[in-house]
């Protein structure tokens, strides 16, 4: 197999940068130990041993995306409105150091945003970003106490959504391509040949997910006390939704300046907020935290798989690691399974 020594990784990143911007995990200064995917430049230390706090979903669903721009004018001759769609040509972006759960999250989102022409709404921004994204995944030889990707068949061995997989071995990484573009990367002159064997990959927590899909729309949906009890300590913040690699709730809005030039944007939003479902009439179908949390779990483990196929979760554990009140989604799912 192809191999690269740890101290040669910067050389690989430099070659990758020739193709387009490279996003890699790093610890920003003064960020209390937070590791984030961020644009890499020579000199930046890549953090490959720890998990990132935020997922990489922003590369396909940016936190704010301009959908179109417009300008409006009203004169004696009449009114005009010019609308220009957003430019979707931006070239390749490389994601380096994603984990199997991060890469698989893209394929889960594809089931909604990336459907083939003719099947559904075509999301031009998502489709072009996804098409241009090259994903280099680092295989996990160890998980932590929040990981539960092994709840899905392939777990840490999943290659879905990846182009190239790096396996820690010896003093570096073995590389295996899992797509034609990954194969292209193996032709770069940065690799050596190696007899090393790929390592044994981690096995993480396993959750019983069978039967949840029907339970969540049936008996558990009407049992609001169940949700009240489990979410008693929840403060309804957006942490879980914003750090999740598959949560995609958004808000759309128009903004205009005083010269009547403006843009229509789409920004991340979260179903855990009261305002998310507040209707103009004043009615709110999800008035309490219990209602909103029920929806979050229901959407991920029932409605989305029923409508789109995959479960809207890859077991990355981010929502567990950072929850300010220590609410563990696995406790909720296990309790739901036992009902």
């Amino acid at each position, binding site marked *: 197999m192809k191999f690269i020594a740890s101290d040669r990784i910067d050389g690989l990143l430099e070659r990758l940068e020739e193709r387009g911007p490279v996003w890699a995990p790093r610890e*920003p200064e*003064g*960020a*209390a*130990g*937070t*590791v*984030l995917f961020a644009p890499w430049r020579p000199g930046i230390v890549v953090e490959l041993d*720890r*998990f990132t*706090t*935020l997922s990489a979903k922003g590369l396909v669903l940016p*936190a*704010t995306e301009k959908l179109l721009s417009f300008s409006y004018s009203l004169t004696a001759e009449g009114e005009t409105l010019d609308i220009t769609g957003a430019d979707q040509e931006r070239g390749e972006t490389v994601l380096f150091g994603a984990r199997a759960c991060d890469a698989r999250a893209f394929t889960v989102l594809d089931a909604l945003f990336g459907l083939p022409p003719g099947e559904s709404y075509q999301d031009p921004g998502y489709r072009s970003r996804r098409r241009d994204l090259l994903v280099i995944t680092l295989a996990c030889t160890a998980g*932590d*106490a*929040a990981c539960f990707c092994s709840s899905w068949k392939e777990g840490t061995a999943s290659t879905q959504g990846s182009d190239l997989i790096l396996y820690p071995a010896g003093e570096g990484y073995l590389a295996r391509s899992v797509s034609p573009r990954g194969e292209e990367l193996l032709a770069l002159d940065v690799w050596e040949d190696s007899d090393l064997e790929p390592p044994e990959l981690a096995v993480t927590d396993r959750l019983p997910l069978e039967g949840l899909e029907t339970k969540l729309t049936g008996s558990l949906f009407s049992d609001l006390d169940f949700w009240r009890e489990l979410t*008693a*300590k929840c*403060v*309804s*913040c*957006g*942490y879980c*939704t*914003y*750090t999740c690699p598959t949560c995609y709730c958004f*808000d759309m*809005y128009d*903004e205009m300046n005083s010269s009547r030039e403006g843009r229509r*944007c789409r*920004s*991340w939003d*979260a179903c855990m*907020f*009261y*305002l998310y479902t507040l209707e103009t009439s004043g009615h709110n179908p999800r008035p309490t935290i219990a209602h909103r949390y029920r929806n979050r779990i229901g959407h991920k483990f029932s409605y989305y798989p029923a409508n789109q196929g995959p479960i809207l979760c890859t077991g990355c*554990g981010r929502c*567990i*690691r*950072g929850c*300010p*009140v*220590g609410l*563990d989604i696995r406790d909720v799912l296990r309790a739901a399974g036992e009902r």
Partner: protein
Amino acid sequence: MNGIVDTIKDVLKETDLVLGWTTDPVTGMATPARFHDGKEAEQAVFDSTCVHNLAVHLPRLKDSRVGIVAKGCDARSVVELIIEHEARREQLTVIGVGCGSLLDVKKIWRRYGYGVAIEDRGDSLLIGGEQVSRGEFVQRKCHGCLEADPDIYDVIAGEVGGEIPADMAQSHPLYGMFASLTPVERRAFWREQFSRCIRCYACREACPMCFCRDVCIMQTQVPRWAGGAVDAKQSEMIQLIRVNHLAGRCTGCGECERACPVGIPLMLLLDEQNRAIEEMFAYSAGASLKARPPMLVFDVNKDIWGKG
């Protein structure tokens, strides 16, 4: 003196529920819990990983008789909530606990991996078997701690009257660094910090004093005070709005900073403002039930023009 479990059991005789902590079976660290009966209360704990400020739940529990376990800093939030009518003194039983500084568990997890075994030995930590100095992993807010023991309480659980550790007497080194920056450098510092913000509003939701939460100015549609875009300028703006709304109300509990997924040192802003409020109005939020927040009782004629 009763321990935490027996005290909660006692308090439950007079209340509907008690807000406290239990041990998370996965991480071995404390996690917030609600106790409704003596059997549940058996699981109660108090240790240096009980970082959460449970007062954040009080505005949503106004109709219940609530017991709440409170450290010195938490008790200040309880006081401020009572003053602002978001909690009812007569409905509350405050269980005071003595605190000798708290661990920044999230920081430990970020560095050593989630769920790593942590043993607090008082003067040092054993993290995953490795002995490390405790100072680096103490909550930033515990540096320069104001109250190791709560000022208001109805009952005390466990030992109080402990000393604040000597290395906690000074404010956090980051504050010194920040104080040395020029205004222009501060601007650049915050632009850099807020470039990480994703506008998840966890700061607001974790804050006990941000109880407008469902009708917050940060997200109102009409009028639209803040733009919708996620960028450093917008984030800085909405955070400054939040900070200003907390003038004379922030008790310095640090929950906003603790909840932030991208590690923005929000307490730098709030601490600066709290000091200004103290200088200008001789007011420290949450210090006394009898005091009134200066912004709520401020009279421009009397307080400024009347002075001359």
